[in-house]
């Protein structure tokens, strides 16, 4: 699984880089517009170390934000399943709040909470929270009639059991949503760092942009891709382990 993800990423990255080189040499562009392979290699040697640390920093915040949003989405979705009205209300609220672009809200968050970890965490969580919430509400509000009917008719149904049944029956769907939202957590963290933080790979990209240094950005993108792929693979692996355990129990 790891190999496949990394290969896929390398193919996409290589294609992107190849296209840039075709443009560079086809249009005879200077290294200022598109860096030469030599310059990219030189930049990699100088910046791979610090950028790797920055990516790990970003990844750590993204993972924390992702966990935070999964917990929050689970709690809200479990509450939201109680009645159709609350579920519908939360869904409408989620749609509306999601409609606000995070780049417009982020500066307010930074002004209120400063440019430290808390702001980055909150923005990362906000970006991946709403898609998670919508899927979780869908899963936890939808009865699994053939199973739930048995427990209801025997009077053994509790809210915990209901949540467990619905989670078990939709574990594949939940895993897919969680893996999908992981990339959003990473994107959210990078956006937050780009806007106002003073750490992480988003901040490094911003500095590179100030310096019009595309070589640095390409190195950063490579490391972000590898970091994100590793995180996605870890999540998929955890999802598979969970599904196997649930099936065997």
């Amino acid at each position, binding site marked *: 699984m790891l190999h496949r993800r990394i290969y896929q990423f390398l193919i996409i990255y290589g294609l992107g880089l190849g296209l840039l080189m075709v443009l560079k040499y086809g*249009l005879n*562009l*200077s*290294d*200022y*517009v598109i*860096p030469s392979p030599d*310059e990219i290699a030189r930049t990699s040697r100088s910046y791979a170390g610090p950028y790797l640390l920055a990516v790990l920093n970003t990844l750590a915040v993204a993972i924390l934000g992702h966990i935070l949003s999964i917990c929050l989405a689970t709690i809200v979705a479990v509450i939201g399943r109680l009645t159709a009205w609350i579920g519908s209300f939360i869904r409408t609220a989620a749609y509306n709040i999601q409609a606000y672009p995070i780049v417009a809200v982020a*500066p307010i968050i*930074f*002004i209120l909470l400063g*440019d430290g970890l808390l702001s980055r965490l909150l923005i990362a969580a906000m970006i991946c929270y709403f898609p998670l919430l919508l899927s979780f509400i869908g899963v936890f509000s939808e009865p699994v009639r053939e199973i739930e009917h048995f427990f209801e008719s025997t009077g053994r149904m509790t809210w915990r059991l209901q949540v467990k049944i619905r989670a078990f029956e939709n574990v594949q769907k939940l895993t897919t949503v969680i893996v999908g939202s992981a990339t959003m957590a990473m994107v959210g963290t990078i956006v937050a760092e780009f*806007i*106002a933080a*003073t750490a992480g790979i988003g901040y490094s990209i*911003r*500095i*590179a*942009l*100030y*310096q*019009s240094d595309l070589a640095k950005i390409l190195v950063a993108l490579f490391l972000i891709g590898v970091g994100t792929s590793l995180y996605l693979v870890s999540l998929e692996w955890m999802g598979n382990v969970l599904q196997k355990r649930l099936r065997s129990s």
Partner: protein
Amino acid sequence: MRTIINLFLISSLISLSACGQKEKLEEVNYRLKWLYNVSTVGDLYAETHGYFARNGLKVNVKPGGPERDALKELELGHAQFGVASADQVLRAVAKGAPIVVLAQLFQVNPLHWIYRPDRMAFSGGEDLKGKRIGVTFGGNDEAILRALLARYGISENQVDLFSVRYDYTPFYEGRVDFWPLYLNAQAVIIGAKLEKAGESYAFLSPDQLGVRFAANSVVTTREMVEKHPDTVKSFVAALREGWRAALDPRNQEQAIQVLLEADRETPEIIVRRQLAVTRDLMLPPAGGEFGQIDAAAWRQTEEIMRAQKLIPGPVDLGPLLGTFN
């Protein structure tokens, strides 16, 4: 009947000649460095008051922005003329970009640092020691600040560098001693707020402390100068005329009108003050021509960037500054 026919013929001739004139205009794109604001007043004035058209050009004056790079657009052929800061130009030329400087808009770099004189004594560069100084890491203010520190023998661990973004709260709250801003743009707005709060303020001018870092200049490609010299000459002539007129106090009301139409966000009272400051920063010393290139400032800028390893090696300023001028 004859009168009607005559009138028809005359109006047709006028329309035809107008069309003919329109067709003759050569269309070019001009990418500014930043959004429409006071630093672009001459560009906008030249466009709206027909200076370009009178020189046979139809110039699309396009606003810049944080993620726009006029130099890249020039090379890709999306624009024929542009505005870029000197550090951008030097970085690009160091990487082989075929750029030529046509005119230097700011004779004094507008980048300054604001501070509160009643809270600390500041009489010279040495007084930066021990201070908390705002800096945009990666921006040209970082290069200027590091040059200032080097000039006054202050090492980085003797100052506290504070990463700056768009939010001025740390300065308002007094958590940062010096905050970077553009003297003709944000400084007027921040100054007005501080005045309202009854606070005094002053500016640290790198130029006065001996660091003359060249600022925004009008640029084009070498190919443009070689293949379309007449277009370049017409453009520069029109632009210079437009800028001179926009900064002429006699045309102040028209210039303000042009700015207010292009930038609806900034109040008129602020625009008036900004225009006065811009005039001081852009007009050359007596006897000089608008847009003249300060070769000494460019040399110092190149030396600063080389010393800070912002460019890999020396840049030959001769062809860069002298090809057209």
